[in-house]
């Protein structure tokens, strides 16, 4: 997994690429925790994300809850296979997907 960040005012975009699994999800959680102070809009760009297991979904949900208190979180560009995971788990209904 790789994360690249782009900050513009109070909007933070994080591009997550590769595999988000049990091993890498804690790194993402830590990176989000360290980067989101003062962020009002967090955009997670999943264009290059190939894989997400429940460990990754947990990070998306906990971050969504956290960001709801200080602004919002948006998920962009998930590929069709990952969209299907969001659909099956009901995450499509609770996350802001673009």
């Amino acid at each position: 997994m790789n994360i690249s960040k782009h900050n513009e005012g109070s909007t933070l975009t994080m591009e997550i690429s590769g595999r988000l699994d049990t091993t890498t999800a804690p790194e993402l959680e830590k990176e989000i925790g360290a980067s989101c102070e003062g962020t009002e809009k967090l955009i997670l760009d999943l264009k290059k994300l190939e894989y997400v297991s429940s460990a990754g979904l947990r990070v998306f949900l906990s971050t969504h809850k956290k960001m709801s208190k200080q602004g919002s979180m948006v998920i962009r560009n998930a590929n069709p296979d990952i969209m299907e995971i969001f659909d099956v788990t009901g995450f499509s209904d609770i996350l802001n997907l673009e």
Partner: protein
Amino acid sequence: MSELLIKADTANLSDVIGFIDGILEENDCHMKAQMQIDIAVEEMFVNVANYAYTPDEGDVLITCNVENGSAVITLTDSGTPYDPLKKPDPDITLSAEERQVGGLGIFMVKKSMDSVAYEYKDGKNIFTMTKKIGM
């Protein structure tokens, strides 16, 4: 018969996935099916690693074979008897605030595999799943 005997430790996840991917790629597995199988194997392996032997350590035997166009995968451990299929499904209609962070792994496995089965035999937990690997 391809098998891997490995310590039930999440640090071994990439070796487990590498073993499964090697077999799936030899058999021209469709990419989407491969991702779904990898996720299912990850969820079940991590479950065993986190709960089966706690606080001790132990091994998992993983087998993966392709029969009649389907991958047949088993995970066998000698830890605490536990039927993961008995875990109630999460309520996926709840709002984000009400949703619990967790409990999704086995649910994803049940939804993405063609069949799943659990058996406790000779002191061992045996979990079997199958998935068609073609288009």
